[in-house]
């Protein structure tokens, strides 16, 4: 399979059988495997200037022209040699300081020596990659913020977690990695199905999916009010939702997950049905009867297959609903494009007392409101609104400093711990009630907090 990466295209066939972390050099079309360490070249000219007082930018310091360089490239000469040639033909190179020479070589190497390293997928790699390449798909959740979520949420093996995310399945994958297949995860999804494009990038073993459940967000209210029943799950809404998801998917993102593929095949089947119907009305020739019968048979099988799938889906849904109804989840993780307040107020109902929850939002303001509403509701303590800053450093002998650019924003987190909710206090203006009940010393404190 042909793959394009950073303006290079290559086949992966040659990479099979090597250990992770192996570096490859790209040739015209395939992969070559060069040595791990390329021995330091170009250092035979150890001449260097001390400063740039005599270096004038006349645009003529490079004696090779554009066409010369292109010719070198066309001849298929190794990138390393091109860099060497560029250095030899630069009149100012010898006058540059040692550091400047270093920088020059590094820049040229980057351009002409195309090397790729193949590494094993992990939350570290994938979250860094998604943030750099497609931040829009993960609601600008920066990797250090994701790291905070995993820690604040006390994610570990054996937990029963509730995850609501619209981050392409990246947050789900990160939670799955930390749980290592132990315990269970219930993914709440909007629309017709959970998006797990990023989750599939992790390459989790099948075992990890055994205890991964999903539950539609649109059924949460009925589950909480007790009107949720399996009988009220006809097949039509399911299909409608499915189509909706399809159109959502187009605007949102192109997905490649297994889940998606499954859905696609389902819609394909639906399309086939409508096509044959058209055929029926168009031409009812005797010759076609045979074909039609075959098609009908196929259709019947399709329908049966569909029904079987639906039945299975319904069975899973019942199981998941039962898991949620126990209301003893060990934590809640929310990172979505939706307003966090209603999500939190509802989903916290499913979480046991003395468990952590973490909400991510790209913006601070919705979390301010969420904070206020949670205090009114009660049943939570230790509320904390936070943000992390991440600064990368260049560390080189005598040239250490913070990197010139840093990320402007990686989103905000609201975290806290659930506690037993006092009965009767939950519905009516609980903040006032709370204040009244508190001992005077504590009341002062709360007021302090609020003013």
């Amino acid at each position, binding site marked *: 399979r042909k793959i394009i990466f950073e303006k290079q295209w290559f086949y992966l066939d040659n990479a099979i059988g090597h*250990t*992770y*972390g*192996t570096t490859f050099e790209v040739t015209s079309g395939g992969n070559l495997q060069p040595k*791990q360490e390329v021995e330091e070249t170009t250092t035979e000219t150890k001449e260097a200037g001390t400063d740039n007082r005599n270096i004038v930018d006349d645009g003529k310091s490079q004696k090779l022209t554009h066409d010369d360089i292109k010719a070198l490239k066309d001849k298929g000469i190794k990138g390393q040699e091109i860099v060497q040639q560029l250095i030899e033909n630069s009149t100012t190179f010898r006058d540059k300081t040692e550091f400047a020479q270093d920088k020059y070589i590094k820049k040229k190497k980057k351009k002409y020596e195309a090397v790729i390293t193949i590494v094993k997928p992990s*939350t*570290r790699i994938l*979250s860094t990659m998604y943030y750099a390449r497609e931040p829009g798909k993960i609601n600008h959740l920066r*990797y*250090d913020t994701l*790291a*905070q979520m*995993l*820690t*604040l949420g006390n994610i*570990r*093996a*054996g937990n029963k977690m509730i995850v609501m995310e619209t981050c392409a399945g990246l947050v789900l994958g990160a939670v799955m990695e*930390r*749980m*290592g*297949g132990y315990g269970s995860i219930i993914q709440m999804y909007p629309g017709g199905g959970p998006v797990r494009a990023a989750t599939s990038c992790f390459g989790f073993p099948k075992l990890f999916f055994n205890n991964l459940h999903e539950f539609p967000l649109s059924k949460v209210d009925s589950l909480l009010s007790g009107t949720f029943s399996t009988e009220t799950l006809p097949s039509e809404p399911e299909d409608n939702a499915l189509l909706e998801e399809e159109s959502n998917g187009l605007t949102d993102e192109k997905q490649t997950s297994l889940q998606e593929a499954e859905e696609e095949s389902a819609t394909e089947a639906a399309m086939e049905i409508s096509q044959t119907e058209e055929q029926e009305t168009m031409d009812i020739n005797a010759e076609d009867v045979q074909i039609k019968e075959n098609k009908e048979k196929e259709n019947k099988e399709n329908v049966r297959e569909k029904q079987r799938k639906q039945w299975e889906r319904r069975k899973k849904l019942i199981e998941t609903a039962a898991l949620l109804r126990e209301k003893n989840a*060990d934590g809640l993780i929310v990172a979505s494009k939706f307003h966090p307040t209603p999500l939190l107020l509802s989903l916290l109902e499913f979480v*046991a*007392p*003395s*468990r*952590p929850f973490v909400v991510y939002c790209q913006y*601070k*303001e919705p*979390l*301010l*409101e969420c*904070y*206020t509403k949670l205090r009114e509701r009660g049943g939570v*303590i230790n509320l904390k*609104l*936070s*943000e*992390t*800053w*991440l*600064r*990368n*450093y*260049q*560390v080189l*002998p005598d040239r*250490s400093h913070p990197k010139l650019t840093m990320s402007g924003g990686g989103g905000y987190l609201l975290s806290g*711990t*659930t*506690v*037993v909710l006092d009965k009767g206090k939950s519905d009516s203006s609980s903040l006032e009630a709370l204040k009244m009940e508190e*001992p005077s*010393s*504590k009341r002062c*404190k709360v007021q302090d*907090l*609020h*003013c």
Partner: protein
Amino acid sequence: MSFVEYGDTIKDGDTAIVFLGHESMFPVKVQHGTVTQTKYGVIRHSTDLIGKKYGSKVTCSKGGWVFILHPTPELWTMNLPHRTQILYSTDISIITMMLELKPGSIVCESGTGSGSLSHALIRTVAPTGHLYTVEFHQQRAEKAREEFREHGVEHLVTVTNQDVCKNGFGVSNIADAVFLDIPSPWEAIGHAKSALKPEGGRICSFSPCIEQVQRTCLAMEEFGFTEINTLEILLRVYNVRTISLQIPDLGEAAEDNSSTGFDGSNPSNQGSPCANLQQGTVQFKSGVPLREMVGHTGYLTFATKS
């Protein structure tokens, strides 16, 4: 209770966290017949704690109340008895992710210090992983062992009392990750390399000073580590406050303008700010940064052995 497994009810011998109020907590060891004094009165363990659910409200003798929380590594970090400077959850979280830790990982750590990071590492690698932690200070090593036993995680950790710079981690070719928080990490890079699995792994070193980072990076390069990357992470905490700002009085003529002007700008304000125009103030919700924040903990240098 265990630091690696949630339990529902409080039992004799558990470590529980008493939550008094905003940012005010302390750990207790639950024991029959013991009492704990708080500023809201006495908590009697036998009747007030044992058998109760974690997360429940406990009324103390003076009528005040506290919440009793299930211990987690994060709550422990905020409440543990300091024997050294400790790492806080912000740094711990990025360390855990960048070292690619997960259930089953084998980790080497030095020094153990107060065990703040150790608890978080154990949490993440449980139930099939293991932590080998090295502490050259004998009493600290002893105290850490005792805590791990009390917290029900001793089967997941081995504490060794030796100098990591001289004698290494006491294991070789088995670790997926190594973490160093010692004054001269560059002297331990060689030992770190031999502790890591032959097929590779990740390393992290925590140092407060850039000179230490400099030497560590050089040592890492020398020992063939790749992907060397230094970063720093800072936590910003916000207080949620309702702020009211006074509208300036610009005299008679401005009065009409001010009321219409603020009507117009209200919807653009976040939330639902209640503008009290009669009194000439506007209220809004704001996330206010703390007056003081942690400006620097340490530089984190990560690298890969491959």
